[in-house]
Protein backbone atom coordinates (compact mmCIF):
# COMPACT_ATOMS: atom_id res chain seq x y z
CA UNK A 1 0.00 0.00 0.00
CA UNK A 2 2.90 2.33 0.74
CA UNK A 3 4.29 1.67 -2.74
CA UNK A 4 0.86 2.22 -4.30
CA UNK A 5 0.36 5.57 -2.54
CA UNK A 6 3.99 6.57 -2.84
CA UNK A 7 5.45 9.78 -1.46
CA UNK A 8 7.58 10.36 1.59
CA UNK A 9 6.31 10.06 5.17
CA UNK A 10 3.73 7.46 4.16
CA UNK A 11 2.03 5.76 7.04
CA UNK A 12 -0.50 2.95 7.27
CA UNK A 13 -3.17 2.11 9.83
CA UNK A 14 -4.69 -1.24 8.96
CA UNK A 15 -6.51 -4.24 10.27
CA UNK A 16 -5.32 -7.84 10.08
CA UNK A 17 -7.22 -11.07 9.63
CA UNK A 18 -8.67 -10.68 13.12
CA UNK A 19 -10.36 -7.39 12.15
CA UNK A 20 -11.47 -8.79 8.80
CA UNK A 21 -13.07 -11.65 10.74
CA UNK A 22 -14.53 -9.17 13.22
CA UNK A 23 -12.98 -10.63 16.34
CA UNK A 24 -14.26 -8.66 19.35
CA UNK A 25 -10.70 -7.80 20.38
CA UNK A 26 -9.41 -6.93 16.92
CA UNK A 27 -7.33 -3.79 16.83
CA UNK A 28 -6.02 -1.28 14.30
CA UNK A 29 -2.28 -1.70 13.70
CA UNK A 30 -0.24 1.42 13.02
CA UNK A 31 2.92 0.93 10.97
CA UNK A 32 3.38 -2.72 11.96
CA UNK A 33 3.84 -2.76 15.70
CA UNK A 34 1.89 -0.03 17.46
CA UNK A 35 -1.86 -0.11 17.75
CA UNK A 36 -5.11 1.58 18.50
CA UNK A 37 -5.41 -1.48 20.63
CA UNK A 38 -8.47 -1.65 22.78
CA UNK A 39 -12.23 -1.88 22.44
CA UNK A 40 -12.37 -3.75 19.13
CA UNK A 41 -11.84 -0.87 16.72
CA UNK A 42 -10.40 -3.40 14.28
CA UNK A 43 -13.73 -5.21 14.21
CA UNK A 44 -15.50 -1.91 13.50
CA UNK A 45 -13.28 -1.32 10.47
CA UNK A 46 -13.76 -4.95 9.44
CA UNK A 47 -17.53 -4.57 9.61
CA UNK A 48 -17.28 -1.66 7.19
CA UNK A 49 -14.91 -3.63 4.92
CA UNK A 50 -12.28 -0.93 5.50
CA UNK A 51 -8.89 -2.65 5.37
CA UNK A 52 -6.57 0.30 5.77
CA UNK A 53 -6.10 4.03 5.86
CA UNK A 54 -2.91 5.24 4.19
CA UNK A 55 -1.69 8.79 4.61
CA UNK A 56 1.12 10.64 2.96
CA UNK A 57 2.17 14.28 3.05
CA UNK A 58 5.04 16.71 2.92
CA UNK A 59 3.43 20.00 3.97
CA UNK A 60 4.73 21.78 7.05
CA UNK A 61 2.48 22.06 10.07
CA UNK A 62 1.80 25.74 10.74
CA UNK A 63 2.71 26.86 14.26
CA UNK A 64 1.33 30.13 15.71
CA UNK A 65 4.42 31.07 17.68
CA UNK A 66 7.42 29.12 16.33
CA UNK A 67 10.04 30.73 18.54
CA UNK A 68 8.05 30.21 21.73
CA UNK A 69 7.24 26.65 20.65
CA UNK A 70 10.92 25.98 20.03
CA UNK A 71 11.84 27.23 23.53
CA UNK A 72 9.13 25.30 25.33
CA UNK A 73 9.80 22.10 23.32
CA UNK A 74 13.47 22.24 24.11
CA UNK A 75 12.72 22.64 27.80
CA UNK A 76 10.32 19.70 27.68
CA UNK A 77 12.76 17.52 25.75
CA UNK A 78 15.46 18.27 28.32
CA UNK A 79 13.02 17.38 31.11
CA UNK A 80 12.31 14.04 29.40
CA UNK A 81 16.01 13.28 28.91
CA UNK A 82 16.96 14.21 32.49
CA UNK A 83 14.11 12.39 34.18
CA UNK A 84 15.23 8.98 35.54
CA UNK A 85 12.09 7.25 34.25
CA UNK A 86 11.85 8.68 30.75
CA UNK A 87 15.61 9.18 30.38
CA UNK A 88 16.94 5.91 31.80
CA UNK A 89 14.36 3.39 33.05
CA UNK A 90 12.02 3.19 30.07
CA UNK A 91 14.71 3.33 27.37
CA UNK A 92 16.79 0.67 29.10
CA UNK A 93 14.14 -1.83 30.04
CA UNK A 94 10.90 -0.91 28.33
CA UNK A 95 7.59 -1.28 30.11
CA UNK A 96 8.02 -4.96 31.09
CA UNK A 97 10.23 -3.70 33.93
CA UNK A 98 6.95 -3.36 35.84
CA UNK A 99 6.41 -7.12 36.19
CA UNK A 100 8.62 -7.54 39.25
CA UNK A 101 7.53 -4.40 41.10
CA UNK A 102 3.80 -4.96 40.61
CA UNK A 103 4.27 -8.59 41.67
CA UNK A 104 6.24 -7.51 44.75
CA UNK A 105 3.34 -5.22 45.66
CA UNK A 106 1.07 -8.26 45.43
CA UNK A 107 -0.94 -6.86 42.54
CA UNK A 108 0.11 -8.90 39.46
CA UNK A 109 -3.01 -10.85 38.49
CA UNK A 110 -2.25 -14.56 38.13
CA UNK A 111 -4.51 -17.39 36.90
CA UNK A 112 -7.34 -15.15 35.73
CA UNK A 113 -7.10 -12.93 38.85
CA UNK A 114 -7.41 -15.75 41.39
CA UNK A 115 -4.48 -14.08 43.14
CA UNK A 116 -2.13 -11.12 42.73
CA UNK A 117 1.11 -13.01 43.34
CA UNK A 118 2.81 -14.88 40.50
CA UNK A 119 5.54 -17.32 41.66
CA UNK A 120 7.07 -17.27 38.14
CA UNK A 121 7.08 -13.50 37.64
CA UNK A 122 10.87 -13.38 37.38
CA UNK A 123 10.80 -15.71 34.34
CA UNK A 124 8.62 -13.25 32.36
CA UNK A 125 10.09 -10.03 33.74
CA UNK A 126 11.60 -7.07 31.89
CA UNK A 127 14.99 -8.01 33.31
CA UNK A 128 14.72 -11.52 31.85
CA UNK A 129 13.48 -10.17 28.52
CA UNK A 130 16.53 -7.89 28.34
CA UNK A 131 18.84 -10.86 29.01
CA UNK A 132 17.23 -13.21 26.48
CA UNK A 133 15.24 -11.99 23.50
CA UNK A 134 15.94 -8.26 23.34
CA UNK A 135 17.88 -7.06 20.29
CA UNK A 136 17.48 -3.29 20.47
CA UNK A 137 15.15 -0.46 21.37
CA UNK A 138 12.85 1.42 19.07
CA UNK A 139 11.12 4.79 19.18
CA UNK A 140 7.76 5.81 17.87
CA UNK A 141 7.90 8.67 15.40
CA UNK A 142 9.43 11.78 16.96
CA UNK A 143 9.89 10.30 20.41
CA UNK A 144 13.06 10.81 22.48
CA UNK A 145 12.19 8.12 25.03
CA UNK A 146 12.36 5.03 22.76
CA UNK A 147 10.74 2.52 25.10
CA UNK A 148 9.94 0.10 22.26
CA UNK A 149 11.63 -3.29 22.35
CA UNK A 150 12.83 -5.12 19.22
CA UNK A 151 12.94 -8.82 20.05
CA UNK A 152 13.73 -12.12 18.44
CA UNK A 153 13.48 -15.75 19.51
CA UNK A 154 16.35 -17.51 17.82
CA UNK A 155 15.37 -21.14 18.17
CA UNK A 156 12.91 -23.59 19.62
CA UNK A 157 9.21 -24.18 19.10
CA UNK A 158 8.41 -20.48 19.50
CA UNK A 159 11.09 -19.16 17.15
CA UNK A 160 10.42 -15.84 15.39
CA UNK A 161 12.64 -13.65 13.24
CA UNK A 162 11.90 -10.25 14.75
CA UNK A 163 9.08 -8.47 16.49
CA UNK A 164 8.34 -5.45 18.65
CA UNK A 165 7.43 -5.98 22.27
CA UNK A 166 6.10 -7.59 24.33
CA UNK A 167 5.06 -4.69 26.53
CA UNK A 168 4.23 -5.07 30.23
CA UNK A 169 0.52 -5.49 29.53
CA UNK A 170 1.14 -8.11 26.84
CA UNK A 171 3.51 -10.08 29.08
CA UNK A 172 0.95 -9.93 31.89
CA UNK A 173 -2.13 -10.88 29.84
CA UNK A 174 -0.48 -13.59 27.73
CA UNK A 175 1.96 -14.79 30.42
CA UNK A 176 0.74 -14.08 33.94
CA UNK A 177 -3.03 -14.26 33.71
CA UNK A 178 -2.59 -17.50 31.76
CA UNK A 179 0.19 -18.71 34.09
CA UNK A 180 2.40 -19.34 31.05
CA UNK A 181 5.99 -18.93 32.30
CA UNK A 182 7.74 -19.58 28.97
CA UNK A 183 8.79 -16.12 27.89
CA UNK A 184 9.51 -17.27 24.33
CA UNK A 185 5.89 -18.42 23.98
CA UNK A 186 4.71 -15.06 25.34
CA UNK A 187 6.92 -13.24 22.82
CA UNK A 188 5.51 -15.36 20.02
CA UNK A 189 1.89 -14.96 21.14
CA UNK A 190 2.42 -11.20 21.26
CA UNK A 191 4.00 -11.30 17.80
CA UNK A 192 0.91 -13.10 16.51
CA UNK A 193 -1.24 -10.36 18.05
CA UNK A 194 0.75 -7.77 16.05
CA UNK A 195 0.70 -9.79 12.83
CA UNK A 196 -2.98 -10.72 13.04
CA UNK A 197 -4.25 -7.46 14.56
CA UNK A 198 -5.39 -8.38 18.08
CA UNK A 199 -5.34 -6.53 21.40
CA UNK A 200 -3.04 -8.67 23.58
CA UNK A 201 -4.72 -7.53 26.81
CA UNK A 202 -8.20 -8.67 25.80
CA UNK A 203 -6.79 -11.69 23.93
CA UNK A 204 -4.72 -12.92 26.88
CA UNK A 205 -7.47 -12.21 29.38
CA UNK A 206 -10.04 -14.05 27.26
CA UNK A 207 -7.72 -17.06 26.97
CA UNK A 208 -7.17 -16.97 30.76
CA UNK A 209 -10.93 -16.90 31.36
CA UNK A 210 -11.30 -19.90 29.03
CA UNK A 211 -8.53 -21.68 30.96
CA UNK A 212 -10.36 -21.18 34.24
CA UNK A 213 -13.70 -22.22 32.72
CA UNK A 214 -12.05 -25.35 31.32
CA UNK A 215 -10.19 -26.29 34.50
CA UNK A 216 -13.43 -25.99 36.44
CA UNK A 217 -15.11 -28.34 33.93
CA UNK A 218 -17.51 -25.78 32.48
CA UNK A 219 -16.54 -26.25 28.81
CA UNK A 220 -17.59 -29.45 26.99
CA UNK A 221 -14.44 -31.00 25.55
CA UNK A 222 -15.95 -31.26 22.07
CA UNK A 223 -16.21 -27.44 21.98
CA UNK A 224 -12.48 -27.13 22.53
CA UNK A 225 -11.78 -29.21 19.41
CA UNK A 226 -8.39 -30.26 20.71
CA UNK A 227 -7.26 -26.91 22.10
CA UNK A 228 -5.86 -27.87 25.50
CA UNK A 229 -6.63 -24.67 27.36
CA UNK A 230 -5.19 -25.13 30.82
CA UNK A 231 -3.24 -22.63 32.89
CA UNK A 232 0.43 -22.70 31.98
CA UNK A 233 0.03 -24.44 28.63
CA UNK A 234 2.36 -22.39 26.43
CA UNK A 235 1.63 -24.20 23.16
CA UNK A 236 -2.12 -23.84 23.64
CA UNK A 237 -1.66 -20.10 24.31
CA UNK A 238 0.10 -19.49 20.98
CA UNK A 239 -2.31 -21.71 19.06
CA UNK A 240 -5.32 -19.99 20.66
CA UNK A 241 -4.24 -16.60 19.32
CA UNK A 242 -4.00 -17.91 15.77
CA UNK A 243 -7.31 -19.77 16.03
CA UNK A 244 -9.05 -16.63 17.33
CA UNK A 245 -7.91 -14.49 14.40
CA UNK A 246 -9.02 -17.08 11.87
CA UNK A 247 -12.12 -18.28 13.76
CA UNK A 248 -10.89 -21.86 13.74
CA UNK A 249 -12.32 -24.44 16.16
CA UNK A 250 -12.63 -23.01 19.67
CA UNK A 251 -11.30 -19.76 18.23
CA UNK A 252 -14.90 -19.08 17.22
CA UNK A 253 -15.74 -18.80 20.93
CA UNK A 254 -12.59 -16.92 21.94
CA UNK A 255 -13.37 -14.37 19.24
CA UNK A 256 -16.37 -13.22 21.32
CA UNK A 257 -14.26 -11.91 24.19
CA UNK A 258 -14.35 -13.01 27.83
CA UNK A 259 -17.72 -11.45 28.76
CA UNK A 260 -19.76 -13.31 26.13
CA UNK A 261 -17.58 -16.42 26.45
CA UNK A 262 -18.21 -16.69 30.19
CA UNK A 263 -21.92 -15.97 29.74
CA UNK A 264 -22.20 -18.77 27.16
CA UNK A 265 -20.67 -21.27 29.59
CA UNK A 266 -22.85 -20.12 32.47
CA UNK A 267 -20.25 -18.28 34.56
CA UNK A 268 -20.24 -14.57 33.74
CA UNK A 269 -18.44 -13.83 37.01
CA UNK A 270 -15.24 -15.33 35.56
CA UNK A 271 -14.90 -12.56 32.94
CA UNK A 272 -12.47 -10.10 34.46
CA UNK A 273 -13.91 -7.12 32.61
CA UNK A 274 -15.72 -3.85 33.19
CA UNK A 275 -18.40 -2.71 30.72
CA UNK A 276 -17.24 -5.62 28.57
CA UNK A 277 -13.59 -4.55 28.35
CA UNK A 278 -11.02 -6.82 29.99
CA UNK A 279 -9.06 -5.11 32.79
CA UNK A 280 -5.29 -4.61 32.47
CA UNK A 281 -2.47 -5.74 34.70
CA UNK A 282 -3.11 -4.37 38.19
CA UNK A 283 -5.22 -6.05 40.89
CA UNK A 284 -7.44 -3.44 42.61
CA UNK A 285 -7.40 -5.41 45.85
CA UNK A 286 -3.71 -4.49 46.10
CA UNK A 287 -3.91 -1.12 44.33
CA UNK A 288 -7.28 0.36 45.18
CA UNK A 289 -7.27 3.63 43.25
CA UNK A 290 -6.79 1.85 39.92
CA UNK A 291 -9.91 -0.13 40.84
CA UNK A 292 -11.94 3.08 41.04
CA UNK A 293 -10.48 4.10 37.69
CA UNK A 294 -11.33 0.73 36.09
CA UNK A 295 -14.91 1.03 37.34
CA UNK A 296 -15.43 4.61 36.13
CA UNK A 297 -13.36 4.75 32.93
CA UNK A 298 -15.69 5.67 30.10
CA UNK A 299 -14.49 2.93 27.79
CA UNK A 300 -14.56 0.17 30.38
CA UNK A 301 -11.71 -1.68 32.10
CA UNK A 302 -8.88 0.59 30.99
CA UNK A 303 -5.74 1.53 32.94
CA UNK A 304 -4.48 4.39 30.81
CA UNK A 305 -7.71 6.36 31.31
CA UNK A 306 -6.53 7.35 34.77
CA UNK A 307 -3.23 5.68 35.62
CA UNK A 308 -3.14 6.04 39.41
CA UNK A 309 -0.62 3.16 39.58
CA UNK A 310 1.82 6.02 39.09
CA UNK A 311 1.33 7.59 42.54
CA UNK A 312 0.12 4.38 44.23
CA UNK A 313 3.08 2.14 43.39
CA UNK A 314 5.70 4.16 41.49
CA UNK A 315 5.49 7.26 43.69
CA UNK A 316 5.10 9.67 40.76
CA UNK A 317 4.36 12.58 41.33
CA UNK A 318 4.16 11.57 45.01
CA UNK A 319 3.61 8.36 46.96
CA UNK A 320 0.15 7.39 48.15
CA UNK A 321 -0.72 4.13 49.91
CA UNK A 322 -2.15 1.57 47.45
CA UNK A 323 -4.03 -0.26 50.21
CA UNK A 324 -6.00 2.81 51.34
CA UNK A 325 -9.37 3.63 49.74
CA UNK A 326 -9.66 7.11 51.31
CA UNK A 327 -8.62 10.05 49.20
CA UNK A 328 -8.30 8.09 45.95
CA UNK A 329 -11.22 9.77 44.18
CA UNK A 330 -9.46 13.09 43.67
CA UNK A 331 -6.41 11.35 42.17
CA UNK A 332 -8.54 9.31 39.80
CA UNK A 333 -10.41 12.42 38.64
CA UNK A 334 -7.32 14.53 38.03
CA UNK A 335 -5.52 11.72 36.20
CA UNK A 336 -8.60 11.07 34.05
CA UNK A 337 -9.00 14.78 33.18
CA UNK A 338 -5.31 15.35 32.43
CA UNK A 339 -5.14 12.16 30.33
CA UNK A 340 -7.91 13.57 28.15
CA UNK A 341 -5.62 16.56 27.47
CA UNK A 342 -2.68 14.30 26.60
CA UNK A 343 -4.83 12.15 24.31
CA UNK A 344 -6.51 15.13 22.69
CA UNK A 345 -3.15 16.78 21.89
CA UNK A 346 -2.04 13.37 20.54
CA UNK A 347 0.94 12.89 22.81
CA UNK A 348 2.27 9.82 24.55
CA UNK A 349 1.09 9.29 28.10
CA UNK A 350 4.66 8.47 29.10
CA UNK A 351 5.59 12.15 28.76
CA UNK A 352 3.57 12.70 31.95
CA UNK A 353 6.22 10.98 34.03
CA UNK A 354 8.27 14.13 33.41
CA UNK A 355 5.82 16.80 32.19
CA UNK A 356 2.69 18.26 33.79
CA UNK A 357 -0.44 20.21 32.89
CA UNK A 358 1.52 23.49 32.94
CA UNK A 359 3.91 22.17 30.28
CA UNK A 360 0.99 21.05 28.14
CA UNK A 361 -0.73 24.44 28.51
CA UNK A 362 2.43 26.18 27.32
CA UNK A 363 3.05 23.78 24.43
CA UNK A 364 -0.54 24.02 23.20
CA UNK A 365 -0.60 27.81 23.58
CA UNK A 366 2.58 28.16 21.51
CA UNK A 367 1.29 25.92 18.71
CA UNK A 368 -2.24 27.31 18.49
CA UNK A 369 -1.84 30.92 19.60
CA UNK A 370 -4.42 30.36 22.36
CA UNK A 371 -3.48 31.64 25.80
CA UNK A 372 -4.18 28.68 28.07
CA UNK A 373 -3.38 28.32 31.77
CA UNK A 374 -2.87 25.06 33.64
CA UNK A 375 -6.37 25.34 35.16
CA UNK A 376 -7.97 26.06 31.80
CA UNK A 377 -6.35 23.06 30.13
CA UNK A 378 -7.51 20.77 32.96
CA UNK A 379 -11.00 22.22 32.55
CA UNK A 380 -10.88 21.22 28.89
CA UNK A 381 -9.90 17.73 30.03
CA UNK A 382 -12.82 17.63 32.44
CA UNK A 383 -15.16 18.76 29.66
CA UNK A 384 -13.90 15.98 27.36
CA UNK A 385 -14.36 13.40 30.13
CA UNK A 386 -17.92 14.53 30.80
CA UNK A 387 -18.80 14.60 27.10
CA UNK A 388 -17.56 11.00 26.79
CA UNK A 389 -19.68 10.13 29.82
CA UNK A 390 -22.78 11.76 28.30
CA UNK A 391 -22.26 9.64 25.17
CA UNK A 392 -22.04 6.37 27.11
CA UNK A 393 -25.05 7.41 29.23
CA UNK A 394 -26.97 7.67 25.97
CA UNK A 395 -26.01 4.07 25.21
CA UNK A 396 -27.45 2.99 28.57
CA UNK A 397 -24.30 2.89 30.75
CA UNK A 398 -24.53 4.51 34.19
CA UNK A 399 -23.72 3.93 37.86
CA UNK A 400 -24.77 0.28 37.79
CA UNK A 401 -22.03 -0.33 35.21
CA UNK A 402 -19.40 1.58 37.20
CA UNK A 403 -18.49 -1.60 39.00
CA UNK A 404 -15.92 -4.41 39.15
CA UNK A 405 -16.08 -8.21 38.88
CA UNK A 406 -17.36 -9.93 42.01
CA UNK A 407 -13.97 -11.56 42.59
CA UNK A 408 -12.39 -8.15 43.23
CA UNK A 409 -15.23 -6.89 45.42
CA UNK A 410 -15.92 -9.98 47.52
CA UNK A 411 -13.06 -12.51 47.31
CA UNK A 412 -10.27 -11.31 49.63
CA UNK A 413 -6.79 -11.40 48.13
CA UNK A 414 -5.52 -14.82 49.27
CA UNK A 415 -1.83 -13.97 49.70
CA UNK A 416 0.90 -11.40 49.56
CA UNK A 417 1.18 -7.91 51.02
CA UNK A 418 -2.48 -7.25 50.16
CA UNK A 419 -3.69 -10.49 51.76
CA UNK A 420 -7.26 -10.19 53.04
CA UNK A 421 -8.02 -7.03 51.06
CA UNK A 422 -11.01 -6.38 48.83
CA UNK A 423 -11.38 -3.31 46.63
CA UNK A 424 -13.75 -1.12 48.79
CA UNK A 425 -15.24 0.33 45.61
CA UNK A 426 -18.48 1.80 47.01
CA UNK A 427 -16.60 4.03 49.43
CA UNK A 428 -14.39 5.41 46.63
CA UNK A 429 -17.28 5.72 44.16
CA UNK A 430 -19.32 7.89 46.55
CA UNK A 431 -16.44 10.34 46.94
CA UNK A 432 -15.76 10.24 43.19
CA UNK A 433 -19.31 11.03 42.09
CA UNK A 434 -19.37 13.98 44.50
CA UNK A 435 -16.15 15.37 43.02
CA UNK A 436 -17.35 14.76 39.47
CA UNK A 437 -20.76 16.36 40.05
CA UNK A 438 -22.48 13.18 38.91
CA UNK A 439 -25.45 11.30 40.33
CA UNK A 440 -25.45 7.54 39.75
CA UNK A 441 -22.81 7.90 37.07
CA UNK A 442 -24.66 10.64 35.17
CA UNK A 443 -23.44 14.27 35.04
CA UNK A 444 -25.98 16.65 36.56
CA UNK A 445 -27.53 19.52 34.59
CA UNK A 446 -25.52 21.94 36.73
CA UNK A 447 -22.26 20.18 35.91
CA UNK A 448 -23.00 20.19 32.19
CA UNK A 449 -23.91 23.89 32.33
CA UNK A 450 -20.70 24.66 34.23
CA UNK A 451 -18.73 22.86 31.52
CA UNK A 452 -20.74 24.56 28.78
CA UNK A 453 -21.89 21.24 27.35
CA UNK A 454 -25.22 21.75 25.59
CA UNK A 455 -27.21 18.74 24.50
Amino acid at each position, binding site marked *: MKKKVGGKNTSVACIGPAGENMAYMACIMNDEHRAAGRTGLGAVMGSKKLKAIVVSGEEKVPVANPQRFSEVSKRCLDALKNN*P*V*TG*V*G*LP*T*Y*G*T*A*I*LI*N*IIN*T*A*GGLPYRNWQTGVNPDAEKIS*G*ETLAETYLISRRACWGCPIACGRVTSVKSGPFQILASEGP*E*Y*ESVWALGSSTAVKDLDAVVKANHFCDELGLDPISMGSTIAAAMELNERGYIPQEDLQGLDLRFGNAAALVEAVWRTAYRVGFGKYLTLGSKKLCEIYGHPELSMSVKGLEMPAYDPRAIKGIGLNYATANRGGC*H*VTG*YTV*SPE*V*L*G*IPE*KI*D*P*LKAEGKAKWVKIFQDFTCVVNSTVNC*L*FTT*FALGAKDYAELLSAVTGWDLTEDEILKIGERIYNLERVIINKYGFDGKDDTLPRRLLEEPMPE*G*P*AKGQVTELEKMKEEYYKLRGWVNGVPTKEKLAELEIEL
Partner: protein
Amino acid sequence: MVSVKIMLFATLRSKYKTRELTVACNGTLLNMIENASKILGPEFVDDVYDKKRGKIRDDMIIMVNGRNIKDLEGEITLKDNDVIAIFPPLAGG
Protein backbone atom coordinates in the same frame (compact mmCIF):
# COMPACT_ATOMS: atom_id res chain seq x y z
CA MET B 1 20.93 -9.22 64.82
CA VAL B 2 18.50 -10.28 62.12
CA SER B 3 19.05 -11.95 58.76
CA VAL B 4 17.22 -10.37 55.82
CA LYS B 5 17.11 -10.89 52.07
CA ILE B 6 17.73 -7.93 49.76
CA MET B 7 16.48 -8.18 46.18
CA LEU B 8 17.77 -5.88 43.46
CA PHE B 9 15.95 -5.02 40.25
CA ALA B 10 16.38 -3.24 36.92
CA THR B 11 19.52 -1.09 36.59
CA LEU B 12 20.62 -1.95 40.15
CA ARG B 13 20.70 -5.61 39.22
CA SER B 14 22.76 -4.99 36.11
CA LYS B 15 25.11 -2.59 37.94
CA TYR B 16 25.88 -4.92 40.83
CA LYS B 17 25.43 -8.15 38.85
CA THR B 18 23.43 -9.42 41.77
CA ARG B 19 19.81 -10.50 41.97
CA GLU B 20 19.61 -11.13 45.69
CA LEU B 21 21.81 -11.28 48.76
CA THR B 22 21.33 -12.16 52.41
CA VAL B 23 22.72 -9.80 55.02
CA ALA B 24 22.78 -9.67 58.79
CA CYS B 25 21.96 -6.34 60.39
CA ASN B 26 20.79 -4.73 63.62
CA GLY B 27 17.28 -4.22 62.22
CA THR B 28 17.61 -0.69 60.86
CA LEU B 29 17.54 0.05 57.12
CA LEU B 30 20.76 2.07 57.32
CA ASN B 31 22.67 -0.76 58.98
CA MET B 32 21.29 -3.19 56.40
CA ILE B 33 22.50 -0.91 53.58
CA GLU B 34 25.93 -0.50 55.17
CA ASN B 35 26.34 -4.25 55.58
CA ALA B 36 25.14 -4.86 52.01
CA SER B 37 27.73 -2.37 50.76
CA LYS B 38 30.46 -4.56 52.28
CA ILE B 39 29.44 -7.19 49.70
CA LEU B 40 28.33 -4.98 46.79
CA GLY B 41 30.79 -2.15 47.12
CA PRO B 42 30.79 1.24 48.86
CA GLU B 43 28.91 3.05 46.07
CA PHE B 44 25.81 1.03 47.03
CA VAL B 45 25.28 3.30 50.03
CA ASP B 46 25.07 6.44 47.88
CA ASP B 47 22.85 4.65 45.36
CA VAL B 48 20.23 4.10 48.05
CA TYR B 49 20.90 6.51 50.92
CA ASP B 50 21.13 10.31 51.03
CA LYS B 51 23.86 10.95 53.60
CA LYS B 52 23.30 14.74 53.53
CA ARG B 53 19.64 14.41 54.54
CA GLY B 54 20.18 11.33 56.70
CA LYS B 55 17.50 9.22 55.06
CA ILE B 56 16.76 6.84 52.19
CA ARG B 57 16.91 8.56 48.79
CA ASP B 58 13.52 9.89 47.83
CA ASP B 59 13.67 8.63 44.24
CA MET B 60 14.38 5.00 45.20
CA ILE B 61 11.55 2.52 45.69
CA ILE B 62 12.14 0.33 48.73
CA MET B 63 9.60 -2.29 49.75
CA VAL B 64 9.70 -4.39 52.91
CA ASN B 65 7.67 -7.56 52.38
CA GLY B 66 5.90 -5.84 49.50
CA ARG B 67 5.06 -2.61 51.37
CA ASN B 68 6.74 0.60 50.28
CA ILE B 69 8.54 2.16 53.25
CA LYS B 70 6.85 5.49 52.45
CA ASP B 71 3.49 3.86 53.28
CA LEU B 72 4.70 2.43 56.59
CA GLU B 73 4.32 4.46 59.76
CA GLY B 74 6.96 4.98 62.37
CA GLU B 75 10.50 3.72 62.54
CA ILE B 76 11.08 0.60 60.46
CA THR B 77 12.49 -2.36 62.36
CA LEU B 78 13.48 -5.28 60.18
CA LYS B 79 12.76 -8.81 61.38
CA ASP B 80 14.33 -12.15 60.59
CA ASN B 81 13.61 -13.31 57.02
CA ASP B 82 12.16 -9.98 55.90
CA VAL B 83 12.49 -9.41 52.16
CA ILE B 84 13.60 -5.96 51.10
CA ALA B 85 13.08 -5.19 47.41
CA ILE B 86 14.96 -2.20 46.00
CA PHE B 87 14.01 -0.59 42.67
CA PRO B 88 15.50 2.46 40.94
CA PRO B 89 12.99 5.02 39.58
CA LEU B 90 11.00 3.16 36.94
CA ALA B 91 7.68 3.11 35.19
CA GLY B 92 5.66 1.55 32.45
CA GLY B 93 2.09 1.39 31.42
